[in-house]
């Protein structure tokens, strides 16, 4: 193919679009910030608008290239969650190119794709509010909720619940990126009584909490989830104490993966670990000999049997309903 220069020009346009969409919502930690997959979908819409292709196949190729470019950029940036991004892009592709089966004229098709794509992106943006609406009823007055990691969906849900109910939160500190500690500040400012605990204290507190509420980086085909490391242990602990585990996730996070065990996940970059003894006043860093292997997978896989319900923009689903939805979405 001859288009060396136009291709790279197009690629940089896509990335520019993506970055612009991402920074739309100010600070990344803010609950109103745009999620990465939604920003990617908007960028792909830009591709459709600018496209000079005359056939469906041509347009699909352009979209695939653009998605791949976005995914590569994401892994270059060192961001963790590739699953939701990949699944969001693929779903967008499927959703918009299904139009081709209905309309035969390409120009009409393209207009319809644009319209559908915008609708899909809009749905995804509104997903958080819908999830908050369907899910906040599962939190009742006087309950203690345990959560893990920072998730904007969970934040939206908890804030909505806090409008009408009094409850308190336990948050795991979330090593190594202290996500929990950062989230605690946010919730505390919003007026919810929050306690931050050590990751290893999840067993200790489990008897006092009423339910566990977590987000997901990706929802896999059998209804399990991929999330920040520690989620698997948390859900096993909750199951052992008969506490419900609720997952809040948008439907574009439904991925066509079927992991059989932890090793079956797509490979991710290991994150560096630092060991600090905080019981000592000096807070000295405990150094580790180079021969000692320090393995830090950033995410783990929680099987469906440990999850009670999923709050999604398609409604409240049981884990087995995820596959049914996926079959319908990818048909």
């Amino acid at each position, binding site marked *: 193919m001859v288009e060396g220069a136009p291709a790279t020009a197009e690629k940089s346009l896509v990335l520019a679009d993506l970055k612009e969409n991402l920074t739309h919502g100010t600070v990344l930690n803010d609950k109103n910030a745009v999620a990465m997959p939604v920003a990617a979908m908007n960028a792909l819409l830009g591709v459709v608008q600018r496209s000079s292709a005359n056939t469906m196949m041509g347009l699909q190729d352009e979209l695939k290239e653009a998605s791949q470019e976005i995914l590569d950029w994401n892994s270059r940036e060192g961001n963790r969650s590739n699953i939701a991004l990949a699944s969001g892009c693929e779903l967008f592709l499927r959703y918009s190119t299904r139009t081709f089966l209905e309309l035969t004229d390409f120009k009409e098709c393209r207009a319809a794709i644009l319209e559908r794509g915008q609708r899909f992106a809009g749905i995804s943006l509104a997903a958080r509010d819908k999830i908050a609406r369907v899910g906040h009823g599962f939190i009742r007055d006087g309950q203690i909720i345990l959560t893990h990691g920072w998730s904007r969906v969970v934040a939206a849900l908890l804030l909505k619940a806090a409008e009408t109910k009094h409850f308190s939160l336990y948050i795991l500190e979330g090593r190594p990126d202290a996500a929990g500690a950062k989230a605690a500040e946010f919730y505390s400012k919003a007026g919810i009584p929050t306690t931050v605990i050590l990751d290893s204290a999840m067993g200790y507190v489990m008897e006092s909490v009423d339910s566990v509420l977590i987000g997901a980086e990706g929802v896999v*085909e*059998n*209804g399990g989830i991929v999330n920040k490391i520690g989620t698997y242990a948390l859900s096993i602990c909750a199951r052992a104490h008969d506490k419900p585990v609720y997952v809040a996730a948008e439907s574009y996070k439904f991925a*066509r993966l*079927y992991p*059989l*065990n932890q*090793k*079956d996940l797509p490979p991710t970059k290991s994150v560096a670990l630092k060991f600090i003894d905080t019981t000592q006043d000096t807070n000295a860093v405990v150094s580790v000999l180079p021969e000692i292997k320090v393995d830090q997978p950033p995410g783990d896989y929680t099987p*469906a049997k440990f999850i009670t319900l999923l709050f999604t923009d398609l409604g409240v689903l049981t884990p*087995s309903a995820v*596959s*049914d939805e996926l*079959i*319908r979405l990818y*048909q």
Partner: protein
Amino acid sequence: GRERLEQKAFHLCSLKKIWGRPSFDIMEGSNTDKISGGDAQKKAKKEKPANFVIPPKKPKLSKAERRALQEQQRAAKAQRQGQPTDKSSGKTQGKQQNTTSPVSNKNQEQNKTSAAPTQRSEVLAVNADGTKDPKQISVLAHLPPFRDPKDKPDELLGVQLKSSNIREQLHPEILQTGRAYATGIICHSNPRCRAMLKAMDAAIQDCVPDDSINDIKDFRHTWVNKVLKPSFQFFTEDCRPHSVGMGNAFTFLKSAIGALDRDMELPKAKALLSESIDAYLQERIDYADLAIAKHACEKIVDDDVILTFGHSEAVRAVLVEAAKAKQFRVIVCDARPLLTGKDMLLDLRQASLNCTYIYLNALSFVMKDVTKVFLGAEALMSDGSVLGLLGTACVALASQSVPVLVCSETYKISNRIQLESITNNEIGNPSHVLEGPLGDNLRVMSLTYDLTPASFVSGIITEMGILPPTSVAVLSMEMDPQQ
């Protein structure tokens, strides 16, 4: 009036005693009075017509006498139905066993304490000559009994030209295939389905329009009703009960014929039908196995130890395909009486795979090394349970610490749900389990299939991808929307 009430109550009481429910005393009439409404009954009595004849009161029998009378009536009925005609012997025998054994069974057991305490034999099936069959097992009484092909050799071979009985006009290929089914030469879901479709194709190709039938001019109707349905009935009733895959394929065949144009010329219609049959076999079985292999290969990694049970075309396709790119070893588990694992072992060795061969009793010994389990299926139920050859459920149960993947083509999806292995099964050859003459007190239970509950299965690999067992129903709706 009172007599009818008495009779009803007696019937109910005896039924309740048989099924072990606590019996409450209806004879006093209190409950039924309340149910029907005391006033209404009194009104009914008053409005009796003038010529209403009240039959003489029957003598009140004691419990033992009533039981004896019932047993007498049952024996008489059994005697009457125990002399069937030659052709329908199998059918009535089957029906006879179904209707009389469960009830007479339990009754007899209660009778024996009062009647003949020395005789422990249960009243069971009745043979053609009226003698009772002591070899049948009560819990399997609802299943058609095993038909040994050696018993009635001419039934499977007889063809009579110009016979009025449609069953005697079967195509020789149908007869041949049927015989192969009955003697076990063709077994397992995929080969049986292929053989059935090929035989029916041959039968249709040779079908000549019968001008003597003056009413129906629709060749499709003739094909389905005069050729296909009798053949299928022959397979199922005289040779061997059909598998789920065969049933689905037969439904497809009927709809394929229905889709033909009524006014099409016969040679063209036959060619078209033949093409459809070949396409079905190719797409739903051969290509499906290739697609299953492609999906499953992603789940096999180097240094895996894969356990499999018996012979399955889909699993074989998976392992042979994966062997091209990955290094792993296979443990083939096998079980009597069919020992289908031997064929699997040969096939895998031809693909140069590193194999171990064990019997089912060595399973717990090797389980610590196993990393994944791949099982074949005879049918998939709508709730995700898997019907497999006897022993599959055992392997799935023992492997709960590792992923258990079931490989099955979608044409085997049934729209039934089965709760356990006994409601719908096939009684196999008893001599496979235990040879030689058995004493009066020894019976042999030989089953063919067992059911693996959906919760034991980690995932089902079909040509559409890997899905959780709970999604089988959705998949069957997507694949065959007209069913």
